């Protein structure tokens, strides 16, 4: 295969990102092409249909379904207030009267003479979609949303949990191989995004929640701590809707793994600036990785995006080993033999040679390295 390596995660000082902000159902767009927006600007709005509450009137009144029209007080499409009478019978003796009252405020959506059922719908909920990043509106998708563009620094993580948020970037540790310990967090970090190093213990997560920290970015965590945080064992990496009090982004993986020096240096250089982060991860077709976007200041302008397409892996490319026994080690490609080689499992696979900073080299299956993009 021409591309038998894993496309890597981008870590870059300057790039232009475009983010589609699409409503879950048609609504109205509130901004225009070229408008400057901030992360918390509402860019589109939609009305989510209210909840439907079915009531079986025929059963409650003790009548046949095809008789219910004779007992209705409210008709189809009528508005109702909570406790309004929807239907009633008219007995000779008034003590035997039964009134069916509406359990909600809303309207009568439909009445069925086959099932004897009435469907009530609550009023719609207004949903406002935010800009997510500071930038400019590059495109308007009528009735659906917009595309926001921003010139920024970008760090993609490998895995995250929690949704979109933003806050000032603050360094919690001094070096990429240090763990982020609870005592390194303080109340001034409330509402901010804290960057750690190699590891995030469970106690630090609890402290972050207590302090109201909005985001944590670290090299690795233990799976058992993730399980404790979520309350269940995550089976499939489709995340972004968790509500654990903060958004968490791993840059390297599971275990104690120092953050890649390049990632750490980039984040350190932007400490004190505002970052938009998202933990949303989806590792199936249509890969979504968590991200840290640090918009560059200055007037937002819409530019043409020219994305260079990678031409496969090259000698000298910075790479990260992404499988044991050398998991997390970072080096550069020093050889690209084309023939298949037998590895200790006896499989014959395509390999490459990696030179590590200490000068040692090793042979790794191509499938087990990841190019560090944006170098």
């Amino acid at each position, binding site marked *: 295969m021409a591309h038998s390596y*894993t496309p890597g995660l981008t870590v870059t000082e300057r790039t232009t990102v475009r983010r589609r902000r699409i409503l879950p159902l048609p609504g109205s767009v509130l901004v225009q092409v070229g408008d400057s927006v901030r992360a918390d600007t509402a860019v589109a709005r939609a009305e989510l*249909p209210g909840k439907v509450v*079915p009531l079986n009137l025929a059963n409650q009144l003790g009548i046949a379904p095809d008789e219910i029209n004779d007992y209705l007080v409210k008709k189809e499409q009528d508005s109702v207030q909570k406790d309004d009478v929807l239907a009633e019978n008219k007995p000779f003796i008034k003590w035997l009267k039964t009134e069916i009252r509406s359990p909600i405020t809303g309207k009568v959506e439909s009445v069925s003479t086959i099932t004897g059922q009435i469907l009530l719908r609550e009023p719609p909920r207004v949903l406002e979609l935010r800009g997510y990043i500071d930038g400019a509106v590059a495109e308007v998708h009528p009735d659906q949303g917009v595309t926001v563009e921003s010139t920024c620094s970008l760090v993609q993580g490998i895995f995250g949990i929690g949704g979109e948020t933003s806050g000032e970037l603050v360094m919690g540790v001094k070096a990429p191989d240090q763990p982020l310990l609870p005592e390194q967090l303080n109340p001034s970090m409330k509402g901010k995004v804290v960057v750690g190093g190699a590891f995030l213990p469970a106690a630090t997560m609890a402290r972050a929640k207590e302090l109201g920290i909005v985001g944590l970015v670290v090299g690795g965590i233990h799976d058992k701590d993730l399980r404790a945080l979520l309350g269940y064992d995550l089976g499939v990496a489709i995340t972004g809707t968790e509500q654990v009090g903060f958004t968490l982004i791993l840059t390297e993986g*599971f275990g104690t793994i120092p953050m890649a020096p390049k990632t750490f240096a980039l984040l350190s250089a932007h400490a004190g600036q505002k970052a938009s982060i998202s933990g949303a991860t989806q*590792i199936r077709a*249509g890969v979504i990785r968590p991200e840290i976007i640090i918009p560059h200041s200055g007037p937002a302008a819409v530019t043409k995006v020219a994305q260079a397409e990678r031409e496969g892996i090259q000698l000298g490319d910075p790479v990260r080993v992404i499988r044991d026994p050398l998991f997390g080690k970072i080096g550069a490609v020093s050889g690209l033999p084309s023939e298949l080689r037998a590895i200790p499992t006896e499989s014959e696979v395509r390999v490459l040679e990696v030179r590590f900073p200490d000068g040692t080299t090793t042979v790794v299956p191509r499938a087990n390295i990841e190019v560090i993009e944006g170098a």
Partner: protein
Amino acid sequence: MTAAQQSPATSNPTHPLNVIVATDCGSTTTKAILIEKVGNEYRQTYRGEAPTTVEAPFEDVTRGVLNAIAEIEELSGRTILDGDRIITPNQAAQGDPKRGVDIYVSTSSAGGGLQMMVTGVVQNMTGESAQRAALGAGAIVIDVLASNDGRLPYEKIERIRTMRPDMILMSGGTDGGAVTHVVEMAEYIAAAEPRPRFGSTYRLPLVYAGNKDAQPQVNKILGEKTALEFADNIRPVLERENLAPARNKIHDLFLEHVMQQAPGYKKLIEMAGAPIMPTPAAVGVIMETIAKREGINLIGVDIGGATTDVFSVFGGLFNRTVSANLGMSYSISNVLAEAGLENIMRWVPFTIDEQTLRNRIKNKMVRPTTIPQSLDELQIEHAIAREALRLALIHHKSLATGLKGVQQERTISDVFEQRTSGKTLIDLLKLDLIVGSGGILSHAPRRIQSMLMMVDAYEPLGVTTLSVDSIFMMPHLGVLSTVNEQAATDVFVRDCMVYLGTCIAPIGQGKDGERCADYEVALPDGRIEKGTLAFGDLKLFSLTRDQQATVTLQPSKQADLGEGPGQSFTRTVKGGVVGLMLDGRGRPLQLPTEQAARVAMLTKWYQAVGLYPKGN
């Protein structure tokens, strides 16, 4: 447009089919194979693959197809493409046999395959029938809604709204029975205003295959809101299931609506000379064909990165299930969640602490394309595969059942047999063949590894033959069989199926080392191997596919080979690339709970059959 109407000119091509190119557009990789007629038989000659291009930035499935075919062009020296067009037919008649192919066919599971929601009235009756119909059509069933499923009406409506399936199948009620419940479900669907997964401008396809008396009401409620189609009732009477009309309707709607919305599929449909089939439906066709041709009972399994499909044919009845979240990469962590750490660890022949193992599995989940580099990593993946296979079979057994809720006539002789309706059809003692497919089984470094993974996971009883799909081409052959059965059969027999061998496993348990059975194996070279198979023993005899051996077993009183405990048993069996395996480990298979004893036991078994390289 129906399946039958699609590409009428090419579905039954007038020219002979001598060169065929077939692709399977998977969720990550598009795999292409070239089949050529060599003499009087068809052979698979070249293969190519390329990443699937359904997603951004390409958003056109045909790009991946063309790339995969281009790889075949490079390897075979044949010109197949003219720009973005597949050259058909082959130009042999024009004196250029190395130019063009006679037909192109394809299957697809890209973009998550066909995702369906099904509804019924009673969950384990019409709900299950609807589920079987959708699964048999190659769908992933994302939810089964039923009047008695325990969810409150508003919860059902919320669920329908949030799931966004590609299609809904509604069933419920027997013909002529009450209509109320099925109409009620139609009202819930209408209230939810369901929207399809792809495309915002078209209406969601919905097949109604319930009580035919409710059709006018269902039409009134859903006719405007969905692309409603009617099919014959899948349960016209309680005692009979009629799945074929609903399945055919699902296939038609899949081509007509769902695939038209997926990026590039319009072009793909135009390129292909036969209707595009959902991948699992094509594999199902192949499984049914094998079972029918050989007159056998079989179980087929396709263990992928995200899902595990299980197919079975018992007594001519075909069933398919898909365990949507049991797989070896994207869903690997879910195997751990469902099986539990202890069940995975019981197959690992060394000790490893829980934290390290958990982190490794999660790292595979977030980097699903990596491969085991060291032997211990391979052994861990094989352990996880055993559990994924085991769980998927349990799931399959629960759905491949006789009809539930059917009254049974009982005689006095049935008094002592507490049989209920809806008993599973899967009887491992009557199972003749297991067919394995998917990366972990097809590409295991040693074939014995595939064989033992399946034996450990399924615990076959008595005599069972095992095989694997050599390079994962069953989907291609499934769709090919709809246009040329001989080509599909030739390639299947000669290039696709790799027979691993036969496993003979007595039922029963005994103390380790105690006599399980005395055996006598008459080998084709005239030698006779005699000995005692003890409980806890695994023995392997070399026997190739074209060789036969006559095996006689005299089991002990605790052991049974289907003839009754202690009853002697003789059978002529065929071999394979692994050979003949006598499995005296007992059924059900039990492993020591104490760690050191378990590791010692596994090491003994693995060494007995040469499972891994020596020194490990």
